[in-house]
C-alpha cells in the first residue's frame, strides 16, 4: 500500500503518456497530475481518449509511450490486479459486475480483498445501506437495470476502500434524481479520497468539481478552474459547440 500521508503533492502523475491503436492515436503525450484529496473532472467529446487514458492508469492498457506514477511508484506496464492492490479503484464506463453473483456477493468480494472476513461482512452490509441497495442484496447483479448496475458498481469499487478513485461516466444513464444522489455521494467520498471523474453532464461537473481538465483528440486542451474552463472560447467550440448542434 502506498503511503499517501507523507505525500501531500502528487498522488497520480503521468508523463508524456501515449496510447496508439494501430494508426489511431487515442492518447497523445498527456502530462497529468492530481493532488491528494483532489476531485478532478475530465471532460471532452466522445473519442477524446478519456477512457483510454483511464485504462492506462489501471493497467488494462499498456501505454505505447510515457510513464504513470502513483505517488512514488512507477506503475507503467503493471497488470490490473497489481495496480488495484496499491489501492486504486475504477468504475468502468460500461458497468462491470460479476453477473451470476448476487449484489451482496459482489460487494463482499470487493471488501474481503482488503479486510478480514468479519469486517468484510459488515462492510458489505454497510455499503448496501449507504447506496440504498439493501432490498436488492440477494438479486443477481446480471438482473439489475442499468441505473442500479451503475450504483452497484460504485458500491463494489468503494467497498474495496481505494484511496484513488477513477470514475468513468458515473452519471451515464441515470435519472435526474439519481444524478443528484451520485453528485452528493461523490462529494462526500471526495473528502477522504482522491478522485478523477469523467463526465459529460455539465451541470453535474459544475456541481462537483473545482478543477477541470479538457481532453481533445488525445491531448489536454485546457486545464483550470471549472468556470474559467467552461467559458473558454476554444473549449466551447470543440466541445460544447459540438454538443449544441
Amino acid at each position, binding site marked *: 500500500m502506498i503511503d499517501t500521508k507523507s505525500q501531500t503533492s502528487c498522488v497520480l502523475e503521468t508523463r508524456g503518456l501515449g496510447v496508439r491503436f494501430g494508426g489511431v492515436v487515442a492518447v497523445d503525450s498527456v502530462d497529468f497530475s492530481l493532488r491528494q484529496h483532489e476531485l478532478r473532472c475530465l471532460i471532452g467529446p466522445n473519442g477524446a481518449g478519456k477512457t483510454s487514458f483511464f485504462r492506462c492508469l489501471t493497467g488494462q492498457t499498456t501505454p505505447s509511450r510515457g510513464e504513470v506514477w502513483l505517488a512514488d511508484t512507477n506503475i507503467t506496464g503493471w497488470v490490473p490486479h497489481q495496480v488495484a492492490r496499491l489501492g486504486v479503484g475504477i468504475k*468502468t464506463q460500461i458497468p462491470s459486475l460479476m453477473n451470476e453473483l448476487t449484489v451482496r456477493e459482489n460487494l463482499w468480494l470487493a471488501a474481503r480483498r482488503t479486510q478480514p472476513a468479519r469486517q468484510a461482512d459488515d462492510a458489505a452490509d454497510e455499503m448496501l445501506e449507504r447506496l440504498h441497495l439493501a432490498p436488492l442484496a440477494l438479486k443477481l447483479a446480471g438482473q439489475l437495470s442499468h441505473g442500479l448496475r451503475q450504483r452497484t458498481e460504485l458500491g463494489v469499487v468503494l467497498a474495496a476502500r481505494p484511496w484513488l478513485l477513477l470514475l468513468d461516466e458515473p452519471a451515464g444513464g441515470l435519472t435526474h434524481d439519481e444524478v443528484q444522489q451520485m453528485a452528493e455521494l461523490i462529494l462526500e467520498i471526495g473528502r477522504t479520497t482522491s478522485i478523477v471523474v469523467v463526465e459529460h453532464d455539465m451541470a453535474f461537473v459544475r456541481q462537483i468539481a473545482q478543477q477541470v481538465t479538457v481532453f481533445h483528440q488525445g491531448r489536454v486542451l485546457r486545464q483550470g478552474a471549472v468556470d474559467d474552463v467552461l467559458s473558454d472560447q476554444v473549449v466551447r467550440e470543440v466541445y460544447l459547440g459540438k454538443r449544441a448542434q
Partner: protein
Amino acid sequence: MRALHANIGWWFGFALVTLALLFAPMFWGSFHLTLLVIQGLLALSLGLLWGQAGILCFGQSAFYGLGAYAYAVAAMNLQGHPWGTLAAVFIALLVTASFAAALGAMMFYGRVSDVYLGVITLVVTLLFNKFMNAAAGSAYVIGQAHLGGFNGIPGFPPLALPLSESFEVTGDALYALCCVLLLLALAGCHWLGQTHWGRALAGVRENELRAQLLGYDPRRLKTGIFALSGLLAGLAGVLYACWAEIVTPGLFSLKQAAEVIIWVIAGGLGTWIGPVVGAFALGGLKSALATQTLIDNTVIMGAVLVAVVLLLPRGVVPSLQRWLQPLGSRARWRLRWMRGEVTANVAKDSHHD
C-alpha cells in the same frame, strides 16, 4: 452460483448420495459399485474446475491416468515395505498435483485463451496415450516397473494398511474407502465454494476484468484450482489402480476424456452433486447395457445424452433443484426472517427470483 448457495438443497442432496452409497451394496455387487464411485470422484474433479472456475478441461483423464500409473510404478518399487503402498498413494498424488500445477501455470500465466486451453489439455491426454502405448520394452523401465506398452502394468500391490497384520484394502473395504473419500471430497468442494478463495474463483469466472480491477490475480487463482482439480482426478486414478489391479493406456483415451465431460453435462454443472449423479447414472446404465446385445450401447448412451441436453439443458440435478427450490427458499427465508436478519419486505421481494 445460486445453485451452489442453496444450502438446504445441498444437505438434502448430500444425504441422498450418502444413503445411496450405503444401501446400494444390498442390490448390486460392491465390485461394480466401487468403479462407479471412483468415476463419481473423477466427475467431481471436473465439476469443481468447470463449475467453480468456469474452466472446461478436456484432459481430466490425463490426471486420472497419471495418478493410476504413478501409483502402479511407485507401489511396484516400494514393494515389501509395510508403508510402501500408502507412500505410493502420496507419491502419486504429489506427481499429479505437481503436473497439473505446472501445466496450469504454463497455460494461465501464458495467457492461453479458453479454446486453446481445451485443445492443449486434450493434446496432453493424447500424448500420454501415445506414449504409454509405445512405451514397451526394456527401455521404458522405472526402477522395478516396466511401463509395458499397450499391455500396461499388472501385478503391483494393492493398497495395504500397515496394521499388526498387513490389511489389504480390497473388495468391500475398498468400496467403503472410496465412498468415504467421495463424500469427503463432496463436502470439501461445498466448503471450498463458500471460502474467500472459492468465491474469488467464482468472481473470476463471472467477470475476470472486474476481479482483476479489485486486486484478484486470475492466473494464480486458476492455477490453484487447476492443481486441486488435478489432485482429485489423480486420487480417482489411484483408487482405480487399486480397484483394477492393472493400469493400461486406455485410461488416457479420448473416450475416457469425453465420458467425464458427458457425465458432468448430464448430471448438471454448477452443483456438486450433479456431476457425481451423472457419473453414477450413466456409468450404471453403461454396465447394465453391457449385458444385452440387442442394441449397440453407444447408440443408447448417445440417445440418453441428446435427450438430457434437449429436455434438461441445465442438467438433471439443477433442473430438479429448480422444481424444488420454491419450497427450499421459502423455508430458508422464514428462518432468516424469524432470526430478524431480513425484513418482511425484503423477504417478499426475493420470492420472485
